[in-house]
Structure formats: C-alpha cells, structure tokens
C-alpha cells in the first residue's frame, strides 16, 4: 500500500487503531527549492531541539515548520495573520507564525503544539480540558487555540471570563466552540498557578 504521511508521521486517514494505519515512511528533506533564492543560515530551537538551516529570507516560520521540519500541527488558515490558527510561542510569547519571517527567529526558542504534551505523551492540563469541555469540533483551529490559551494563562490574562475572551479574540473558531474553549482555559487557569503556563 502506498505510504502517505504527514511529514511528522501519523497516518492520512486518522485511523484510531494502529492496525489500520498505513505504513509510515522516513521523511527526507528532498524538497525542491525556488531557483535564484538567497540563503541565510539560521539557528533556533523548536520544542527544545536545535535546528540549523539555510533559509530563504522570504520563507515564513509557518512554512518552515510545516514544509521543512514536518511539524504540521501548526495550521495555515489564512496566511495573513487574521485567524490565529498558526499561533506558536517564540521565547514564550505567542506570535502568528505566518507573519514571522523564519530568519527572524535566529537564536530564539520556538514552541509548537507538538511540544506541549510531555515527551511520554501525557497531555498538558489545557489539552485535557479541551477534550473534557468539547472545546473543538473540526479541530483545525485547536492547535492555535491551545497555544493562545497557554499564553493567555501564562501572561496572567485569565482572571475572569471577559479577560479570557479579550485575550483569545485573535483566534477564530468557525465551528463556534467558544463556550468550550472559554471553559477549558478558565478551568486550567484556576487549576494552575497563573504565572506558570507552559509545563
């Protein structure tokens, strides 16, 4: 059977059971590049891993994460900084990765949705709370919502519902799961010290 993968592994049809997964293939970086591109050497960390790459200065951090590093958990909803689906953390602060030139993160630490759960797979309490409160439907905005929610709590902006709303208003959810998202962030903020967002 043809091996079709997300670059980071997994399977294309989201089979919940290992027995149904299509085979995984080892992803190389055989991607074509644009001709006549200027290259800039860039070094940064992603989820604690050091990355050194020759980058086209026009490449967005979002495209580098998704297409060159295989971290497709970060979503492209608009590519114009309007929807928040591509939210990641840069040195602990949330940014929209689609409007961030990748060369600009040189020397900095990027955290994506793939870096939120513990290495052994234990979910972060906010991820658990998203599941428990059904804070998602299609789930496309969810990685961005989780990254934004973590930052909202870490920034100390989860004091009450109005404040949470204000500080999550950059992340669109077309399915309208806002009530669940609000509940998940509120619950997690109350459970954790408001100064400690990212475990």
């Amino acid at each position, binding site marked *: 059977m*043809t091996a079709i993968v997300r670059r980071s592994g997994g399977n294309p049809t989201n089979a919940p059971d290992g027995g149904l997964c299509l085979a995984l293939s080892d992803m*190389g970086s055989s991607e074509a590049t644009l001709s006549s591109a200027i290259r800039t050497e860039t070094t940064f960390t992603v989820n604690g891993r050091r990355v050194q790459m020759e980058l086209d200065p026009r490449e967005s951090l979002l495209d580098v994460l998704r297409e060159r590093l295989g971290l497709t958990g970060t979503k492209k*909803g608009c590519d114009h900084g309007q929807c928040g689906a591509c939210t990641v953390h840069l040195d602990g602060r949330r940014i929209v990765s689609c409007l961030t030139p990748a060369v600009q993160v040189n020397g900095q630490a990027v955290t994506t949705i793939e870096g939120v759960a513990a290495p052994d797979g234990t979910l972060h309490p906010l991820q658990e709370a998203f599941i428990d409160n059904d804070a998602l439907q299609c789930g496309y905005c969810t990685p961005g919502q989780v990254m934004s929610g973590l930052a909202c709590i870490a920034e100390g902006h989860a004091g009450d519902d109005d404040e949470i709303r204000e500080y999550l208003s950059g992340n669109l959810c077309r399915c309208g799961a806002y009530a669940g998202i609000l509940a998940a962030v509120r619950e997690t903020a109350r459970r954790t010290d408001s100064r400690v967002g990212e475990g």
Partner: protein
Amino acid sequence: MLRPDGTLKVTGEFAYSSDLWLDGMLWGATLRSPHPSAWIRSVDVGPALAMPGVFAVLTHEDVPGEKFYGLEHKDQPVLAIDQVRYQGEAVALVAADHPETARRAAAAIVVDYEVREAVVDARRAAFDPSCPPVHAHGNLVRHQPVRVGSTFDAPVVVTGEYEVGMQDQAFLGPESGLAVPGEDGGVDLYVATQWLHVDQDQVAPCLALPKEKVRLSLAGVGGAFGAREDLSMQIHASMLALRTGKPVKIVYGREESFFGHVHRHPARMRYEHGATADGRLVYVRAEIVLDGGAYCSSSPAVVGNAASLGVGPYEVGNVWIDAYGVYTNNPPCGAMRGFGAVQACYAYESQMDRLAEACGLSPVEVRIRNAVSQGSKLATGQIVDTPAPLADMLRELEAMPGPGEPSAARDLRSLPGGVAQTTHGEGVRRGVGYGVGIKNICFSEGFDDYSTARVRVELLGGEPHVLVHTAAAEVGQGLITIKAQIARTELGIDKVTIAPADTSVGSAGSSSASRQSYVTGGAVKATCEAVRERLDRMRAGHPELTLEELLELYGPVEETREYRHRPTTPMDPLTGQGDSHVQLALCVHRAVVDVDVELGLVKVVELAAVQDVGRILNPLALEGQIHGGTAQGLGLALMEEIQVRDGKVLNPSFTDYLIPTILDMPPMRLSILENPDPHAPYGLRGAGEPPTLSSTPAVAAAVRAATGLDLPRVPIRPEDIALVPAAG
C-alpha cells in the same frame, strides 16, 4: 462519551487534507478568471511550461473524459471552455515541484479575454426577458410555486421587502487534497469532503475512468458547513497526477478559498401577510428570488426548501409562494448550513414581528397563536405527524431568565465595540428579539437517501472487538463518536474501532442536511442488529459458550446493511403540494443586544435557545452544534457578507469578511427537549442546522427593538443603524 479523535486534535497529530505528504509529490495551482463574464480568445501556456520545475500545464483540452460536472446538473466545466461565467472560474492548471513555482507558473499563463456584460441582478435574471442568458438554456434554474386556498384579503395586512447577503461557510481549513496515480491507471484521492461517493460519481467520468478506479479516502476535514458538498480540487489534482505520473497536492490559500467553493444564496424576498385583527394568519404571499450565480450546484434543492418552508412553522390556510433560483455571473451559490430555509426564515420572522406590532400583540404571542403542532398541515399539504410543540417552546423561552440590566459603572469591554469604544456608552440602547425556525432534516423531495454500514465482530488479542466501517464524513460534528456509541450500545461490546471513511464501502450520503446521526446512525444500528441476530443464532446452538468462545469457534461475524428513511415525494411543480420532507426540526431563539445607535455597533449580550432534538445521543456534542449553529446565524445577522460589486468579490479575506470571534459570541442558555420522532432511530431529530435559522431573525429583531429601525436586510451594517437619514 468524548470524541475519539480529541487527543489527535489537541496535540496537532490529526492529519488534515492539507497536511498530507508523499515523497516526490508535486504541487498543483489553479489559474482563475479575473472577470465575471468574458470570452476566452486564447490561452498561451508556453511561458508557464518553460519555467524550471514545472511538470504540466493543463487546460480544458486536457480533460480526459466528460468536460462538465455538477451536483444536480452537469453544467460546470472542469476547466473553462471558451468563456468564463464568474470571477474565479478555473481556466488552467499547473503542477510544479514547489508551491510557489506552481503559483508563479499559473500567473505566467497568458489568457486573452474579451470582457462581456455581466448579469449581476438576480431579479433581472429572473424576470427580464431581455436579460442576456448566462447559459444557453436560459437563466431560470427552478421556479417552485406553492398554491393553497383562494382567500388573499384580510383585515390586517403587513408587507415587507427583505434581503439576505451572500454568506460564506468560511471553514478554517481551506480546500485541499492529494491525488496519487495508481498502478492500475486509476487514482487514489485523499480529500476533505462531505460526501465521498458523490465526489467519486462526478470525478470518474471526467477522468474517463470507471468508478472503481477512482478511490477516495477521507482526509481530515477542517470544517465544512456545506462548502465541501461541491467539488473543488478533486478533478484538477487527479488530472495532474494522471498526466505527470506523480502524486499531486493542491491546497487553496484563504483568498482562493473564497473563489473555490459555493456560498449561501443571497436572497431578495417580498412578503405579504394577512391576518385577523387578533393576529391569526389568513394568508401569506411571497416572492423569493435566490441568486444561484454562474452554475447550478444545489440551487434546485435550495429553491425547494425556500418554497416548502417559506411560511415557517405556522398554520396558514392560504398560501401563494413563488420561489426562484436563477443563474447570474455572480459567484456560484449552493449548500450552506440551513440551505434555503435560512433566507426565508429571516423574512417570515421579520413579518411576524410586523404583524405583532400591527395587532398589538407581543412577538411571542403572535407566534404562539399561529404555531404548528402535531397534526398541523403545512403549506405543502404535508401533515406534521411527529411532536412539534412550538407553542410550549416559545413559552419556555420567554420564561427563561434574562441577562439582567446593564450595570451603571460600565467596563468598556461590556460596550458595543469593546475596548475600541470611543464614547462612554451614552448612545447604547438595549433590545430583545425572538426568532423561530423550521428545518427539514435529511434529503427531501423524493431523493433516495440512504447510508451503508459494515460491522465486524472478531477476536483481537483474545477480546471481542467491533469494527464499524462507513463512508460518512466526520467534519467535526462528532459522527464518529455517535457511531461508536451506537455500536457499543447495540452489541454490548466495549472495544469499538471506527474505520477510516473511504469508497471501499457503500455510500453514506452527505454530511449535510443534519442527516448523518439519523441515516448513518440508522445504518450502524441496523447492521449491529443483524450482527446481533447472527450472534444470537450461534449462541442458540451453543448456550454454554461465551462470546469469546463462539467467535473462536465460528470466526469473525460481519454484516453490511443499507438504511433508508421513510420515502418522500416530489413537490407538485404547479402547486408545491406533496409529502416532501422526512423530518422537521424546530428551534427558537431569544436575543438580547446592546446597540450603540450613534456608532452603529451591536453587542449581543445573551442568546437563549430551546430546541427539540427528539432524543439526546451525546449532550456535549449536541450543545456544541447548537452553539455553533447559533454563532453562524449571529454572523449572518451582524457581520458576514461576501460583498459583490459588478460580479467581483470585494472582500476575500478574514480582514474584510468577518466571522464571529469569542468576543462576539455571548453566553447561551439552552433548553433541549426530547419529544421522540417514532420514525427515526432512537427517536432522534437532526440538530445541526435549526439553530442557524432562528438566531439570525432573533438578533435582527433585537436590534430593531433597540433602534426602532426597519432593518430589512442582513447582515445589519453599522451604517444601516448610524447613518439612517433622519425622519426618513
């Protein structure tokens, strides 16, 4: 029970169609028309082909099979042939080894257009014989009359002209998919869609392939709401893959997505309601014109809904409705949550408020006096043969506690416009409004609407295990949760796996019309029952054996069943009469708004809803559906519109096409009723669409109550409130 895909979705591991990757794959790009109407004199693909990294450039001449496709009529060319009929129509395709190269190559294709007059006025397209035809067969897609009774005068008469703007589904995960050429000359297509088999039915003839050589698998779907019912990149990616012999991925950007799918039909509606002095409806006359844009899509069915549900859930003895769907050179329109019923609902509910005012009744009372109930006859002659406790729902809604008065010391965040407010709230007025909606569930008008399920029970690691396989699209609504719940309940086996949806099992029909819990849920239930019967027979022969031992002895048990809901009939083409609907669902909303009448800004303070769902299968997912549907209705009332001028879209971005944020969506009070429908599996009633209907008129009515303005158009824009000429 929680979503089986929840963990994948909160960790970023869930693979959406845009996340797929195959070594050596190419990227496809689409060249689209900048004109709403033009002849194509020539297409020169030479400059694109000459670019390094480009593997193929295709035009309509390269379509291997049939050149046209479509959901109801095959009137849309795979790639434009000699003319374009809307801005954004696909003209040519490119495959290249880098997405940016593909886009640049598409831009390098030289198309010589001769611009024509664009037909952009739907009423003109419907009624003016001198209007140029958008298609050779004319501009009328469907005219559906409804005719009942002959009394069209009454003591109280209210009239209105209403308009609904073009709404976009605006799912967050743009159209995308991966086509892989097969060794047998066929193609494997991994795509985000709502209905795998109807895609297969349309794709295969255009590729000149038998259906079994076009295999579709559902990739992760980033929202749908109707916009994935029509094809987008399916045929295009397959053509490029077959031509190059390489896998081809196409992912639309946000701007392209606005041109890549159909929208909700804009509507222009004229209504006249006649009633007795005490507010009982005598007659309703209506003319509903729906702009279908350049291609048919599902316009005929949208017209059918607007006509058959055009008076709403009210008893009326005399009805004269004409609903039209027309071609224009505007963007094509088709399915969106609520499908034809949304537009009419905004108009008839606006009329009910006018009637209440004319008769000196409250908005709730006038609705109660005319409400349908079980046994009522609809305008189509169909008898409501299941519970429809509309009057009780309205009473319950009215009795729900409200949000309380705004506090005197106002936080900026609580004002319309939020922290961007430039006043101290001096111009803020509060208003309350009500809305009622009725939606048909499942496909209507005689459609053979069914779903297929395959269920297998076997021993895995010594334990009994159920595998449920359907082709039904999980689009976020939570269908896989429901399927697993049903299998677990019917078979009493804890370990249940939902197989990925693909075309190796029979059709499940579309994830639309709020139908999947009913129809695919029904198919899974029926199949589990068949499996259970076989297990019971096996058990009868060996009463001493456990289930594990029986499965050990006999091997796996597998059954496949199709499930059909009760049949419907077409609408009579002259009178609209017929039992055209399977199931009807009601939802009622109350909206409380604060309006800054000087700035034209609206803040929805609270929304309350009562909905009858027959039977609750999954409370969490159900509440999510009601919240989500309500949010999209709120969006239509206040902010969402694709602005089209002279056939061109002015706002194809999320900066200019606004959808509700978490700040716009207020807290909701819900009351969910369970009056079972005896015809439906478990008595359930489809739930996803009804709240989308009633929230729009409720919000609009609340804004009217706050401002005293007519507001005959949604979305209500700030200038409609703040820039109204005085004493106009």
